[in-house]
């Protein structure tokens, strides 16, 4: 089994070698007063088409072509190489016209979203794995709702059996909303454990005023607060892993369309498509 390090090194070496050849060819064209922009443009367009085709491969998993993992490796290194080809194509200057600027912005947005996505796909799984429980994204709303019901049941039962409303009032004032509502967009963009720490601290403070049966329920609530926070953490990070891909793929189609149009226009302004 090839280690990740050796795979990374060999893929990077191959990418650099191909890029070096392309730069050499472009320089040679330039030195002979030729025009490399059509050549680099076509290579860039081919690279973008290849990158976009990964989504097609994912949609047809029964076909006997290379594994998705090999495709992703090719996708990553072709994408990284495409940035250099893009630089070569625009001669390391940002375009000035509206159409070309739009195309450049679309490419850069797609590229940056890919880089950010790569970082997230490599870093978020390990953060999720540190949570004690593994949760399937689609089940999170159901698990949250079950947890909310259990918490409410536990508190109501304690109130009924002890006749004391101390814990019940605290629950309805401070905790019910936490269990019932979903977290806001701020938490989804940057999950943190501030609410969890605040609630656990308040619960600890409250426990000194509770009777032994209420304290037993309080212990259950401690665990439920933690579990709910873990579920929210999973929801936020798994959502992020899905959302970036949605954005990345969403940018690809306009990029493809505008890039094709750019190519056609370039040929027209150069004296015709044929």
């Amino acid at each position, binding site marked *: 089994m090839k280690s990740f390090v050796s795979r990374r090194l060999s893929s990077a070496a191959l990418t650099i070698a191909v890029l070096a050849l392309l730069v050499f060819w472009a320089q040679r064209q330039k030195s002979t007063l030729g025009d490399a922009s059509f050549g680099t443009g076509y290579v860039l367009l081919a690279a973008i088409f290849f990158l976009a085709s990964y989504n097609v491969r994912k949609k*047809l998993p*029964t*076909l006997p072509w290379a594994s998705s*993992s090999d495709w*992703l490796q090719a996708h990553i290194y072709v994408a990284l190489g495409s940035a250099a080809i893009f630089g070569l194509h625009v001669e390391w200057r940002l375009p000035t016209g509206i159409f070309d600027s739009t195309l450049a912005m679309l490419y850069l947005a797609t590229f940056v979203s890919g880089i950010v996505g790569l970082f997230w*796909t490599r870093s978020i*799984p*390990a953060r999720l*794995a540190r949570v004690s429980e593994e949760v399937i994204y689609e089940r999170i709303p159901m698990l949250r709702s079950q947890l909310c019901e259990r918490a409410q049941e536990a508190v109501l039962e304690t109130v009924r059996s002890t006749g004391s409303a101390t814990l019940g009032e605290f629950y309805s004032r401070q905790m019910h909303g936490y269990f019932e509502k979903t977290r806001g967009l701020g938490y989804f963009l940057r999950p943190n454990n501030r609410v969890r720490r605040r609630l656990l601290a308040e619960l600890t403070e409250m426990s000194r005023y509770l009777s032994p049966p209420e304290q037993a329920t309080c212990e259950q609530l401690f665990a439920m607060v933690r579990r709910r926070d873990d579920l929210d953490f999973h929801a936020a990070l798994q959502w992020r892993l899905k959302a970036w891909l949605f954005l990345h793929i969403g940018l690809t189609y306009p990029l493809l369309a505008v890039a094709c149009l750019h190519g056609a226009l370039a040929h027209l302004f150069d004296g015709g498509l044929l």
Partner: protein
Amino acid sequence: MPQSEVTASRPQRWDVPFGDAMREEDVDQLLQIEPFLGMDAERFPAALPLRGILQNDTRVNHYQDGAIIVREGDYGGSAFLVVQGKARVVLAGLDSDVLGRQPDAKPGFLNSLFRQFRNPQLPEVRSHVTADTDLVANDSLEVADLAQTRVFLQDVPRVLENTRSVVLHTGEIFGELAALTRSPRTATVLADGEAVLLEIRWQGLRDLMRRTEALRRHIERLYRENSLRVHLRETPLLSNLPDEHLEAVAEATVFETHGDFQWHETFDSSASGDAAEAVVAEPLIAEEGSTCEGLVLVRSGFARLSHRFGHGHRTVAYLGKGQVFGLAEAIQSSLKKSPVPMSNSLRALGYVDVLQIPQSVLEEHVFPHVSQQLLSEAAEKHAVYCGEHHCDLQSDSIGGEQAQVETPLLEFLVEQRFINGEQAMLVDLDRCTRCDDCIRACAATHDNNPRFIRHGFRHGSTMVAHACMHCVDPVCMIGCPTGAIGRDRTTGIVQINDLTCIGCSTCANSCPYDNIRMVEVRDSSDAIVIDESTKQPIYKATKCDLCADLPMGPACQHACPHDALVRMDLGNLGELSEWVNR
């Protein structure tokens, strides 16, 4: 408008008999020969009569000279009784070409492409079921097998030249071990001249053995006579032993069975009891500190090799079929001329069959035929060194590939009995982005029905998902009344024949890993199929089939973009160690 329900008769055992040529007079004839002659028909229940078993779970096969009856390496689902003529067991491996093996035909590019677009929209649609038709069709696999063109060995004397073989005569049974332990055939068997054999489906054999002590003893005697020597020859230090000494070793070898054959009935993977107590409760085969009494060879099943640590027992390794225990101590005892204490304990994990060769026999018949240097090397190679933090095994130290895997992971795999998995689905949660591409690929391959759950037991960042592991010992097959669940003959993949599954849930309840799901099925008009008598839905067992018909193997693994999911033989610790330390 499609119907919401459609009635069908619930499938029963023996709806599809093993062969269609067993007439009443054939059964009468069988009852006149051993071992059936000695069987007491009264001991069989009314629902499962002896005649019924013979009529539905057996078939008579005619073979011409040189015809291959079973091939080495094929997974067995039946045993054979020589009724007439002779059969020759070839003890040395023959080439695949000679045995007429053909590679499986895989669908081409266009077929693979279109199958995805032909998938029904609703779950669990069975296109072969239509309203008012019988849910049971002919078992195409077995019927095809019955009518199959026999493969012949060409130029038998030349092929078998310099090859050891044993001739089986009328009344002898073979193939029972592979059939009952759900393992590959250990030898190729040919017809020696014209021969008539009775093939007994393993479900029938199981039921016969359950009620006939004599048959069980008969089969054990046959094993001792035929297969034991082969097993002994595969053992380190015994491979080159002169025949007369091997004979003496075979005579003295003791058969032992530890644990429960149906261990899955009491095993609870979710139980969170005291781990130390659980280890102590496992049936002890040999205890650390006790005097070495000889060599233990694992014949089938699994055993835990452990070493005392603190107040508990630390797992050093697990031993499976063909592996040996106590060789280092046996050699040291012989070299020092005094018994050496065992440095580890050996305990049965669920169920294990072992062979014990006594120390005195080793000293008299084995060690004198091996050089001192070879003995010292073997003792060194099989030694296990335990330090404060972990135990070190020499590479290949116990007769199989063993490598360094951190002790907690090893404990986890043993505790949950995942060591049984030959194609377990491991997910590296440090790399898995939870994108569900694996699930989508699985569904696309199985008519829009995913056949696993991306969830399961975890150890650190390693998760063993709920996907059929195609176990070494598939206990799910034990109770199946119709034999609908069985191994593919050549690949060993555990498959469910949807046509003969009666939806009894026995396999799903038997699977210790909860990897089989019972589902309601729909007919081709999308109506739920219900039993015509009880009006209850008819269920079918479903599970991962390892995408046996796909050219590139399991779709789940192929679809994982991040190298997070892998199908792996957990009996191969070397492979596991490589994967964990990528």
